[in-house]
């Protein structure tokens, strides 16, 4: 295992890239001039990540050659924290889980870096962008490679910081700064849970320190901790539930699950490569990775597993419904990401942890592709993100259209030919398979059925997005009456609501299925999410295909999103057995030990449904059926506009769509509860506390001194005779004392 030392280079390369960009970036751009300097700086940003990917791939191959039971190598760099008996070294673990994520992070990361060199070419703060992006890769690698919870936490916070910096990259726009703060603050809630989980583990293991080898304080290191946790938690399921739920709160924050999801859609304020890399492919899957890493804890807590499954299911459906109300192309993809993350958590909740990771990987492929594609569309449309102004783009940007179509087919799960099908199928099969104990009396079957509904919804909203963007006979920005109204109005008012008036003038009688919102609705929308529209398209605007640095990553990702990779990962349980090798463990727990790591016996949770659905083809048929339903619906409504032609009253649907657009009021509710009303209440309470209690104590100190001084003041009569008398009495008293003391001493 000699060359595992290379893992330090995998970690160091993004750090080196970060240092180059941060310290020398501006000089490089200055030295070579804007055009070439940016190319040099961009190349220097891409190369370290690509090199890290190559090294990571080499390490993964080495790991694959090792026997399945010894695929876990711990490398220690130095002693990081030593407090009393606890020791936390700076150490990484090289095992299938970490290396899978290393490949995803560096592989997709380098593609997105390459894409960003084109996308951000006109950006003034070019090197600042790549500084953050390289730093993000470094932090993410620490997160996935760290061999203890503390190191994972560094990475966890590091990616949170980079996410904050990149969402607020265009910080001069207040909305972006607000979105960045929202992401950061919401993630704090999750981090709070993660930290409490970590402390609970330390406290719990600290009271059972005798289970560790004497003198070994590495309580938080996975190779030490997990086996001990496995044996301890099997005796203490209550503590397993506590720890698992706290850790899941952390996962909810980072991976945008229901109560804490609402930062992710706002995070779309960042540049599109950031959305693709951080808010779709890698960072938001950190929660799934963490649950996989700590799956022992979840294994022993049916309650926590049930919570994970239910939260995942709810999020998957909730976000899918919201996606129907979105008109911003990136927002649709953001809610789609939230929804897909829900799928991953359902997989973890029902015990098919490997399926969650499988979906992490395939989702990273196709969602990165979709985001980068949307970035290409936005680039081509001169930074217009609103799908209501798209249409018929297939004529102008064929490469983007072709690659995004692959992404669309992958996410809707076209059988066998595209990646999304395999992982989604694995998750639904595991959920229907109902092999995992949860608090729901052992039945997780309903989550499987609900996920099938979710699959239909996914198909429908993704088809809606694709049709609105690429379909149609004519681009909507070209329709003169729409344009002129918007244009005139823009000059007249120059306010955010000009689109509303555009609708009013241009589409009042031409909007039967409520595709455009009414004035009132748009005003509310703008009030909720104020946007600066810097770019306005003229009817003779011609979208341009993106440069080669942008479509090459699209093409590679499109290739990865086809069925090929996923087929080989799924074939003969290759990926499942890579993460969780079959080891014929004790069937009672479904757990087995591999080099000290307890892993689930894959045979115990095989993920094959019973009964009618035991036939794999039946499930495939069902999946295809729901996909076709979704396709048919979207085609009829958004493609053919059938309800419009049939004179169907869509006003009721418009109301629903508006409701969905506003996240069914959840975001506003949270804002009102926690920020406006709750924040005001807490603020008032704090102000009262400060003004009444703290200031009161300060004033009381003064008043006491004043009162005592007033008493002492009485002694100062100002009469000389008074002072003389006191002096005399003092002298007499002193004398009496001295005489008595001396006579006492003489005695």
């Amino acid at each position, binding site marked *: 295992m000699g060359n595992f030392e290379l893992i330090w280079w995998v970690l160091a390369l993004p750090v080196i890239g970060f240092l180059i960009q941060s310290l020398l970036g501006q000089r490089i751009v200055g030295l070579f001039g804007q055009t070439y300097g940016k190319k040099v700086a961009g190349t220097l940003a891409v190369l370290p990540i690509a090199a890290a990917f190559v090294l990571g791939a080499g390490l993964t191959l080495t790991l694959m050659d090792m026997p399945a039971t010894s695929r876990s190598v711990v490398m220690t760099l130095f002693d990081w924290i030593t407090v009393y008996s606890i020791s936390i070294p700076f150490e990484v673990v090289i095992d299938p889980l970490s290396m899978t994520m290393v490949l995803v992070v560096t592989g997709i990361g380098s593609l997105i870096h390459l894409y960003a060199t084109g996308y951000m070419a006109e950006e003034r703060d070019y090197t600042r962008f790549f500084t953050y992006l390289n730093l993000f890769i470094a932090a993410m690698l620490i997160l996935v490679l760290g061999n203890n919870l503390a190191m994972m936490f560094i990475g966890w916070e590091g990616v949170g910081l980079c996410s904050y910096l990149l969402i607020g990259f265009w910080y001069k726009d207040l909305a972006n700064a607000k979105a960045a703060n929202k992401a950061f603050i919401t993630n704090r809630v999750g981090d709070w849970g993660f930290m409490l989980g970590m402390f609970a583990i330390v406290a719990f293991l600290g009271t059972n320190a005798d289970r560790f080898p004497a003198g070994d304080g590495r309580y938080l290191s996975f190779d030490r901790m997990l086996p001990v946790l496995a044996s301890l938690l099997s005796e203490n399921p209550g503590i397993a539930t506590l720890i698992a739920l706290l850790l899941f709160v952390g996962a909810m924050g980072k991976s945008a699950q229901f109560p804490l999801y609402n930062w992710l859609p706002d995070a779309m304020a960042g540049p599109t490569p950031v959305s693709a890399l951080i808010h779709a492919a890698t960072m938001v899957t950190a929660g799934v990775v963490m649950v996989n890493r700590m799956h022992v804890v979840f294994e022993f807590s049916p309650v926590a597993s049930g919570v994970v499954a239910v939260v995942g299911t709810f999020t998957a459906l909730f976000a899918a419904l919201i996606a129907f109300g979105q008109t911003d192309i990136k927002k649709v993809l953001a809610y789609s990401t939230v929804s897909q993350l829900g799928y991953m958590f359902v997989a973890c909740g029902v015990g098919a942890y490997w399926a969650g990771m499988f979906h992490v990987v395939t989702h990273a492929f196709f969602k990165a592709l979709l985001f980068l594609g949307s970035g290409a569309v936005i680039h081509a449309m001169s930074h217009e993100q609103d799908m209501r102004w798209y249409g018929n783009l297939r004529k102008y940007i064929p490469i983007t259209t072709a690659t995004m179509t692959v992404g669309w087919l992958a996410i809707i799960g076209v059988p066998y030919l595209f990646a999304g099908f395999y992982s989604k199928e694995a998750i639904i099969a595991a959920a229907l398979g109902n092999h995992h104990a949860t608090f729901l009396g052992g039945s997780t079957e309903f989550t499987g059925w609900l996920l099938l509904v979710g699959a239909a919804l996914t198909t429908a909203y993704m088809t809606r997005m694709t049709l609105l963007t690429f379909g149609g006979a004519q681009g909507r920005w070209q329709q003169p009456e729409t344009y002129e109204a918007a244009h005139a109005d823009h000059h007249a008012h120059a306010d955010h609501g000009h689109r509303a008036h555009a609708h009013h003038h241009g589409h009042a009688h031409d909007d039967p299925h409520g595709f455009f919102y009414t004035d009132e609705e748009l005003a509310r929308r703008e009030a909720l999410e104020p946007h600066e529209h810097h770019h306005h398209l003229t009817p003779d605007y011609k979208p341009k295909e993106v440069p080669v640095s942008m479509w090459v990553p699209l093409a590679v990702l499109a290739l990865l999103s086809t069925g090929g990779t996923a087929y080989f990962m799924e074939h003969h349980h290759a990926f499942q057995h890579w993460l969780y090798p079959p080891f014929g463990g004790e069937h009672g727990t479904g757990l087995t030990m591999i080099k000290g790591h307890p892993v689930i016996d894959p045979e115990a949770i095989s993920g094959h449904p019973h009964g009618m659905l035991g036939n794999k083809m039946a499930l495939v048929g069902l999946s295809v059926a729901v996909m076709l339903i979704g396709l048919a619906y979207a085609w009829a409504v958004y493609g053919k506009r059938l309800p419009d032609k049939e004179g169907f009253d869509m006003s009721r649907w418009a109301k629903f769509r508006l409701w969905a657009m506003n996240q069914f009021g959840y975001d506003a509710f949270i804002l009102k509860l926690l920020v406006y009303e709750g924040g005001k209440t807490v603020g008032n309470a704090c102000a009262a506390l400060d003004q009444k209690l703290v200031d009161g104590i300060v004033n009381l100190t003064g008043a006491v001194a004043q009162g005592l001084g007033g008493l*002492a*003041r*009485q*002694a*100062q*009569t*100002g*009469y*000389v*005779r008074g002072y*003389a*008398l006191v002096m*005399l009495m003092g002298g007499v008293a002193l004398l009496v004392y001295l005489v008595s003391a001396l006579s006492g001493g003489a005695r």
Partner: protein
Amino acid sequence: MTGNNLADYLTLGLIMFSIGAVGVIVRRNPIVIFMCIELMLNAVNLTFLAFARFTPTSAALADRAESFMSGQMMVVFVMAVAAAEVAVGLGIIMAIYRLRNEIDIDEMNLLKG
């Protein structure tokens, strides 16, 4: 009164000192107060001299001047200091009189809290 008894001198000093002290406290005219202070100082002087005169001398101490001279020396110091004090004090009283046209001690209560 035989004039040979230490207690007699001390009693006289005590009486003089008490009269002086009471005078300082009860009188309002600073000149009188000064006179009382002089009385107290002289009571102390008398005491010094009495102690100096009646200090028992032993053979070992007989040839040491301080054994009986120190008390007398203190008296000379006290007289010198008293003269200086009177000079300064009368100067202050003159200044106050010029400023306020009166020297009643009870009217000078600027230190009243």
